[in-house]
């Protein structure tokens, strides 16, 4: 496949010079493409969605805290109710008259 001496393509190609205009976005675009093809870390993901996740986390933790306190209050109230009834049973002759032999 060597060009013959009379083939004009050889000298044309030898003389051909490519001078593309410089593209300042070339490097950033290459890095962007690379980033797109490699998976981002969890930290990078969080940083990228920090606003949304902070909002969701804030609301969730407030609700969780409120729920925990409400559950504790409900439990205490139920125990207190039970204690009041036991207390009144000990004070009430009407109940004692029923429960004693």
């Amino acid at each position, binding site marked *: 496949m060597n060009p013959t001496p009379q083939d004009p393509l050889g000298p044309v190609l030898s003389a051909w010079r490519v001078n593309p205009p410089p593209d300042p976005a070339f490097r950033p675009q290459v890095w962007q493409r690379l980033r797109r093809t490699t998976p981002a870390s969890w930290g990078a993901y969080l940083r990228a969605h920090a606003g949304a996740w902070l909002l969701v986390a804030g609301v969730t933790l407030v609700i*969780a805290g409120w729920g925990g306190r409400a559950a504790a209050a409900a439990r205490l109230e139920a125990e*207190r109710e039970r204690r009041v009834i036991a*207390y009144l*049973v000990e004070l009430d002759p009407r109940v004692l008259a029923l429960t*004693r032999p």
Partner: protein
Amino acid sequence: MKHLVVTLAALALAATITAGIAYRTGSSRTVQAALAQEDAMEWLRVDFGLTDAQFAAIKKLHDDYSLICEEHCRAIQDATRTLRTLKAAQASPADIAAADREVQSLRLVCESAIATHVRRCAAEMSPEAGKRYLAMVLPKIKDFDHVAPPDLGLHHRHP
């Protein structure tokens, strides 16, 4: 997608821990401990923040009241026994009605005596504690004469 799932899992864990901490710290541990002791006087002391003097005064009121309680208990038992006997003997309706009225009358006397007693106890507490105590106890007294809750393990002691 993987990061979303991991983030949601982390958030769920954080929420569970937060709820757990809030649950543990959400109510007074001393009140919970007093409630767990199954001791009415200790519960009153802790839950209503009684001073030693208040506690002693209320304890005395309770001790004094237990004598009245004993009398009322016996009177109700006697009246109830009489009523049952009359019913068993198929006595006249008038006699049964009279015995029934006696039982009801004694019950009313008891209700009044308990209400008076708890008001005296409340008067020994601080105004705020007394108000809370009455709000907790008084509404239950009126209809509290039918049956004792079955799982309370009654260990009533009269002197």
